[in-house]
């Protein structure tokens, strides 16, 4: 068996292990549950008023479901980071990683197994959230191509955020800290165009909202699902995905390779 097939075999073994964890302790319901509750709150409690402020053709709540769903979907992806960081930190505190490190298995396969499992878990959560959104009146206009592009974009975002949260999970020494570290990520959709248009915000918040990565991501998703121009935000979004994937991957790999005792 050469190094690459060994890497694939070991990654698949560890992926199966992580998926088994996820089946046994279905964190997916928490990962999807929080955004679903938030979706219902925003649409039914705040949606009438917020929707009126959008000045759309449907008016009120119906307009707001359309507006907020892409934001909630990306909030879901950001929130899934918590699950990743927790699963990494749990492995590190349990001592099983020390065992893996003294076994003749491909080093990178441990991280690959975690990343792939968590991206899959995030995508399942996204499907659940979108299903609820459709049930309460979200009416996307996307065709097969747009849906495919939307899911591809979300998978890339999930991949980047997962790599970052793998690194965050390795930085901490306890599961509790690991669950708190990715929290700021979950705030970003609020400080962007996820819940209200950025031009309704005061400076300098507005500038921050326009420049931070979640705004182009949300705008691209909006464009794909509801029609309208994706334009430059699509390119910026793709750029951000690439940056987070590379930075997260390099960071996490370096942390895993460092001397575990120091």
């Amino acid at each position, binding site marked *: 068996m050469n190094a690459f097939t060994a890497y694939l075999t070991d990654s698949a*073994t560890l992926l199966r292990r992580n998926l*088994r*964890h996820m089946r046994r302790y279905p964190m997916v319901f928490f990962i999807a549950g929080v955004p679903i509750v938030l979706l219902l709150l925003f649409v039914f409690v705040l949606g009438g008023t917020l929707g009126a402020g959008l000045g759309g053709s449907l008016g009120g709540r119906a307009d707001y479901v359309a507006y907020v769903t892409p934001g909630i979907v990306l909030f879901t992806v950001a929130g899934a980071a918590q699950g990743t960081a927790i699963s990494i930190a749990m492995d590190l505190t349990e*001592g099983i990683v*020390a*065992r*893996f490190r*003294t076994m*003749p298995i491909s080093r990178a396969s441990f991280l690959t197994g975690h990343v792939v499992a968590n991206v899959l878990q995030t995508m399942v959560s996204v499907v659940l959230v979108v299903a609820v959104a459709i049930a309460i009146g979200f009416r996307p206009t996307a065709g097969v191509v747009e849906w495919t592009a939307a899911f591809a974009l979300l998978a890339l975002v999930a991949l980047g955020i997962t790599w970052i949260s793998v690194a965050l999970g390795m930085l901490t020494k306890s599961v509790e800290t690991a669950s708190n570290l990715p929290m700021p990520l979950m705030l970003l959709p609020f400080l962007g165009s996820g819940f209200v248009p950025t031009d309704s915000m005061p400076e300098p918040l507005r500038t921050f909202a326009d420049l931070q990565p979640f705004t182009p991501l949300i705008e691209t998703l909006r464009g794909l699902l509801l029609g309208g121009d994706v334009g430059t935000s699509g390119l910026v979004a793709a750029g951000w995905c690439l940056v987070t994937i590379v930075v997260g991957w390099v960071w996490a790999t370096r942390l895993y390779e460092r001397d575990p*005792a120091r």
Partner: protein
Amino acid sequence: MSGPLAGPAIRAVGLRRSYGSHLVLDGIDLEVAAGTVFALLGPNGAGKTTTVHILSTLIAADDGDAWVAGHDVRRDPEAVRASIGVTGQFSAVDGLLTGEENLILMADLRHLGRAEGRRRAAELLERFDLVEAATKPLAAFSGGMRRRLDLAMTLVGDPRIIFLDEPTAGLDPRSRRVMWQIVRELVASGVTIFLTTQYLEEADRLADRIALLHQARIVAEGTPTELKRLVPGGHIRLRFTDVAAFARGTRAFSGAVRDDDGLTLDIASDGGPRSLRTVLDALDHASVEVGELSVQTPDLDDVFLALTHDDRKAAAR
């Protein structure tokens, strides 16, 4: 697996390692012959775990060299990993999987194949008395069961060299004896065992050779018997059957420590054959009948305290 080992199973020369400004290992030399049990004995914080971590490729030494199964731990860690099994101080089991799933995970990571992996898992569950708990989540496992599973997981790959870092720490006496039995069986099958412990009794019972690690250095090394000879305090105990014989005995050995109620005399001795002959000759000469004679050697506790005592005083000064 690796073939017969030409040289020692484990060899280390001048291992040095510090954490920040704290020196944990200050030039450790070790040699462990294949097929033997080597015990690294020392109190908490002496550097035992660090030594295991370096030899098992988990961390790197700052200085010095080490070879395990003939492979350099620094240059060829993959070859070392293929030859060893490690059971650490803290159980390295997957708490979310069952016992059987844990073993199959190890088999898959060793690329044993599905059928062979299952066969091996079943065999180890049987051997380690874990069959009933095999399909239960680990939360239901006792400390002893977790430790046995941990060791079983280490054995999935059939390693020829096994590191056991404090394998019985925190176990009840019964589980400890079970673990000792397992270690003996492993050695009988030709495996080399590198064991760390802070229990002198454990090292005494299991190890062919013992190294005493104290304050980052090895302060003594040898067989249990050799180590016990390092300290004074041994004696020959004579037990008499009647008061008259006891009285004659006390006259023959005037320097002995006497116990009038137990009718015993303790005569200072280094435990060697010469001192035994001297005592027997003296008994013959005085025509004293002895009920029972036993040679009492100092135990490892005495050795340990004697060898570490001076340093402690020096440190306190």
